[in-house]
């Protein structure tokens, strides 16, 4: 296994090299880099404004659900079911929050790391779940919201199938490879 002391540094390098590399290549190819950047930035800002309504709706749902305590109750309820797939019970809240909220999931996984450590079985499974799934509802709402699609068809069932598969396979791969 590769051991790297400060992984954050690699992430930083990728970002810096990407940004500088794009500008350098543009310069070499004689692209008016500043003007082109402004055009793109304007478009990005417009795209951000288009996703605002969907973002408002989703933030409202998630804030209400978190405040109501329903998530904690659902975690307790789902725990025995989850044990059947050899998924550690500590990861239940993560599985429930992950499809809804990225920042919520970050808070949950930090808590799991504090409670049982990042290198414990539950900590590793939680990491794999976090790294291999996305905030499904956010993505669906924002992507479709931006083009005015209201009939999402079978998108959500298919996306949730992917999430559920990810959760189960996460426990499976950690058991197989790391234990």
């Amino acid at each position, binding site marked *: 296994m590769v051991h790297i002391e400060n992984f954050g540094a690699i992430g930083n390098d990728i970002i810096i090299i990407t940004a500088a590399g794009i500008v350098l290549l543009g310069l070499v190819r004689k692209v008016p880099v500043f003007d082109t950047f402004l055009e793109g930035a304007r478009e990005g800002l417009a795209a951000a404004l288009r996703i605002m309504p969907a973002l408002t709706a989703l933030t*409202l749902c998630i804030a209400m659900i978190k405040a109501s305590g329903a998530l904690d109750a659902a975690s307790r309820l789902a725990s025995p079911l989850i044990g059947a797939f050899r998924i550690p019970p500590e990861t239940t809240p993560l599985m429930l929050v992950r499809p809804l909220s990225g920042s919520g999931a970050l808070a949950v996984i930090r808590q799991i790391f504090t409670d049982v450590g990042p290198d414990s079985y539950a900590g590793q499974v939680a990491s794999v779940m976090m790294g291999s799934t996305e905030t499904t509802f956010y993505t669906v709402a924002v992507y479709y919201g931006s083009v005015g699609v209201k009939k999402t068809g079978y998108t959500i069932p298919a996306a949730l199938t992917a999430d559920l598969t990810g959760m189960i396979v996460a426990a499976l791969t950690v058991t197989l*490879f790391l234990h």
Partner: protein
Amino acid sequence: MMNYVFAFLIILAAAWGIGSGHAPEVAAAILKSGGDTVQLLLTVAGAMSVWSGLMAVAEKSGLTQWATRLLRPLIRLLLPGLRRDGEAEQCVCMNLVANLLGLGNAATPLGLRAMNAMRREQGLNDGRASAEMTTFVVMNTASLQLLPTTLMVIRTEAGSADPMGILPCIWLTSLSALTAGLLMCLILRGFASPKN
């Protein structure tokens, strides 16, 4: 579908909050969430603007065309309905590249442009998702990342002795999740349109 998800979450939260004595917290959440969204939007909009700017430069320098050529066989397989070398195909490619590198902030604006280009290319204005749009959104919900940068940072912060040791597990797991999602797309598409 989003209508039901939205209604279900709001009503569940309201009923549960009142029933379990968390009414003050839920009420506060309703009042606060609008402001929180604006805060979130400011962060997201700034990041999206920066990455869209850089991507515009990358496009004019021919970098995106090069990446598109590299990923084209995969895209043709997954999204057969896209016009060859069209804007949609290029944006889908760049969105994939950004996702693989773990640059979520760059992936979103490109994904949104891809959606917009698909809508124009396919001439859809009836509020229905096309098969290509659905596949593309499912691909984005399954998060195919080679380098989940944020996760590595929190694992390091939490004192992990081997923050990257789980990477092979993550690759295998996201690949399984993506495959399951795409298979489900195929199955459900069969149900949705038996005549095609």
